[in-house]
């Protein structure tokens, strides 16, 4: 570890729930000084510093998207947020180097012991920086790069710079601009041509400081004919004041490549989770987002695929569970920009108590394209009388040789189903849980095994106390 700049930071600001000795802390609030501070600490090259400052200007000039989005966004107070803090800017390479208290938190999540064997590499993000990173030798031997975004931009600038900010431009939306200004952490992955990564690459994210926003930035490039599956899971302890999480994830699948990006997210109920995720699929490439959103106060996330090359394919599989007081505003974006591209969106949402789930979709097929197909299915399940669900798709499919269909339905669990199970001695709550799990079962099957197990457990947990 290099010498650390001596910055006089008031650690009494912010009431940390974990007694963390944060080595780097940009303080509270956002200004050009914050950007300089982050850039200094991370030893950013000049072009990144400029990129950040340009993004800050864009962020400041863009209005909140409340003309279509939830007005709850107005409750985010940007000057009360801590934009950067880190346990050390270099990811730890070996488990032994990881500090004891951080290990304890991970152990509670059950990360390393159970999954180390199965997983190719663990890039566990503890606050802003990857605190633990371990790539299996086999994956590294194949030439796969799996590092934190900071290391990626420093050590592999030739690949990083070519694609960074290209799929999601800084000014795409207010929160992608914010992320571009203050990003830290996240993964950078490069899969060389023809390499098929057998094991999923996995990263765990975790928020651990009150009033602390997490702005990770992930860039995955799958070179021609390669294949990779990436998994992220999020859990966070409950805190009393609002926390902002605003990630940007960019995927690039070159000719014939396949990327699967899997998220299981379970934020605590005070988190604003405003994420921009988009993939660029070249000729015959395939990008699939599998997304499960549980928890948070407000989630806004619409994974997208831009099908740029002929026969490219995009897919979004989405499960959202909105508990009491939560709003899951999720969906998908499919932009068909070449002939014979196909996309599929399957979204299932469950609203509990006063929870609200919203599906927002965008399907676009450009002029003079042929053979493009989109299929969209959205199903919503409402559990209680005060539960709410909305569907707002926008479909523009031009060209007479293209086809699309959108279907959505809203229902509740039938009383007959519950009655049938109760007759056989299953309690009402357990019956409801079973019915909900049945509703999402076909999608859950698409998750890797340990995720689908976890998912079912999370759904059961959320369903507890929702009946009666």
């Amino acid at each position: 570890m290099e010498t650390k700049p001596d910055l006089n930071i008031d650690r009494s600001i912010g009431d940390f729930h974990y007694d963390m000795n944060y080595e780097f802390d940009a303080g509270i609030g956002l200004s050009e000084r914050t950007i300089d501070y982050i850039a200094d600490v991370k030893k950013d090259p000049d072009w990144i510093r400029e990129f950040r400052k340009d993004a800050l200007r864009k962020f400041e000039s863009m209005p909140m998207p409340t003309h279509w989005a939830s007005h709850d966004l107005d409750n985010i107070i940007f000057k009360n947020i801590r934009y950067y803090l880190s346990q050390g800017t270099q990811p730890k390479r070996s488990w032994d180097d990881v500090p004891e208290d951080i290990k304890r938190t991970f152990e509670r999540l059950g990360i390393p012991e159970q999954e180390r064997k199965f997983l190719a590499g663990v890039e566990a993000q503890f606050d802003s920086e990857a605190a633990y990173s371990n790539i299996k030798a086999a994956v590294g031997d194949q030439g796969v790069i799996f590092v934190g975004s900071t290391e990626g931009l420093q050590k592999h600038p030739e690949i990083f710079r070519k694609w960074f900010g290209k799929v999601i431009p800084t000014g795409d939306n207010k929160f992608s601009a914010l992320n571009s200004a203050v990003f830290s952490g996240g993964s950078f992955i490069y899969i060389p041509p023809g390499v098929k990564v057998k094991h999923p690459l996995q990263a765990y994210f975790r928020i651990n400081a009150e009033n602390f926003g997490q702005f990770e930035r992930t860039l995955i490039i799958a070179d021609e004919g390669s294949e990779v599956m990436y998994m992220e899971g999020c859990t966070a302890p409950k805190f009393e004041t609002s926390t902002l999480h605003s990630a940007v994830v960019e995927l690039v699948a070159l000719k014939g490549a396949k990327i699967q990006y899997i998220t299981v997210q379970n934020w605590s109920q005070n988190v604003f989770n405003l994420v921009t995720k988009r993939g660029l699929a070249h000729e015959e490439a395939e990008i699939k987002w599998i997304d499960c959103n549980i928890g948070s106060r407000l989630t806004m996330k619409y994974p997208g695929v831009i099908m740029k090359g002929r026969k490219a394919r995009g897919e979004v599989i989405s499960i959202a569970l909105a508990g009491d007081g939560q709003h899951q505003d999720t969906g998908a974006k499919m932009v068909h920009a070449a002939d014979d591209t196909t996309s599929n969106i399957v979204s299932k949402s469950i609203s509990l108590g006063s929870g609200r789930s919203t599906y927002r979709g965008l399907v676009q097929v450009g002029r003079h394209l042929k053979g493009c197909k989109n299929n969209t299915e959205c199903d919503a399940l409402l559990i209680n009388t005060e539960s709410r669900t909305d569907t707002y798709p926008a479909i523009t499919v031009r060209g007479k040789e293209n086809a699309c269909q959108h279907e959505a339905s809203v229902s509740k669990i039938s009383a007959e189903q519950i009655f049938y199970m109760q007759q056989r001695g299953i309690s009402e709550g357990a019956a409801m849980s079973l019915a909900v799990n049945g509703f999402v079962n076909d999608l859950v099957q698409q998750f890797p095994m340990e995720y689908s197990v976890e998912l079912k457990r999370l759904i059961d947990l959320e369903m507890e106390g929702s009946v009666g």
Partner: protein
Amino acid sequence: MTSTLTEENVAPTRSNWPNWFVTEQKAALADYEQAPTPTRRHEAWRFANLKPLDLSTFVDAAPVSAEGRLINSSNGISDFAAKMVFGNNALLHKSAQSLPEGVIFESLETAATNHTELFRKHFMSQPAALGSSKYTALHKARVATGAFLYVPANTSVTLPIEIFHWAEGNNATIFPHTLIVCGENSSVTVLDYFKSADKLTAMACGVNDLHLEKGSRLTYIAVQDWSTTTTAFHVNSTNVDANAKCTALIANFGGGFIRGESLSRLIGEGSRSEMYSINPVEGTREIDQRTLQDHIAPHATSDLLYLNALDDRSRTIFAGLIKVEPGAQGTDAYQKVRNLILSDDADPNSMPGLEILNDEVRCTHGATNGPVSEDELFYMQARGIPRDKARRLVVNGFFNSLLERIEEPPVRAHLSELLAKRLSVA
């Protein structure tokens, strides 16, 4: 300056109206002037073309010059109960063949004086909820006449009632209005025609109010056939009370830019609203439709089906919303838009939306886009039908599938005939 929107130009048309209404009109004009012109940031105007909202070239419509021709051309269905013909904001003709006793069918301004209570209760009683409040304010400020129909309780009007609205002259501005009130357990069918007397550009800003009291039955058909360069706003508002049933079909055969808004409020238990639309569009014509199925009462049903066939560089926008309010348990709502794409340059936009605030509902919606089936074309071509005609026959069949939902056989046959004529397959 002959701008259509200034106070001096309004005054003469107000002589037939009671004073209280003239006061309301002045306030409405102020509302219109103060309301900002919509922008695309406004969700209700997403995807919309805003160019047609520049109304500065339009002028006050002069009295029609071809009164006789317009009256003689106002022919719809062969057997009808009564008819009114309007041209450039004036009532040109009124006839009643077989109206049951108690039915009030007169001009709007007469109703405002003679049936003030009914008029005030129902005239534009719903605020425009779908984006065009600026233009409904303009309508209110400028409306000079219109049709008023009241069917008393337990009365059935067996034959359809027909209303014609004509626009004549270059840049003429007209404000058609149809207000229908169906008393308890009454029934009536109304055909509302919107036509251009010439091929010139006009601007129409029309409002329809449909009110169905308990157990009543209304079939309302709007056949819009403005000139292909006309800009028109059509704002429909429907209230359906307990066990009443409204079937509304809007056929957009003409118009250069049409902004249509249809609000259906299901305010009584067991009410039903059917909202249908058929839209053949070609050239650079544009049809922008926004709908809301507002389920306020429990156990109500609504069914929306909009069909668009897009050729050339035409454009459609369908933005629909089913809203199920917290008290509306047992709602059964359906919404579907189907786009038949006939050209690579056509631009269909669909936004079928749902907002469900109650768990005991069954709601489905759908949107599909697809081309004419090559197999069907081949089948017809193999039997000697030229490809172009075969294509028009497919479009005709596509729309006829919806016309089958119109229950009254003579009305259905009449619409089918109009459609065949429109598509040149007759």
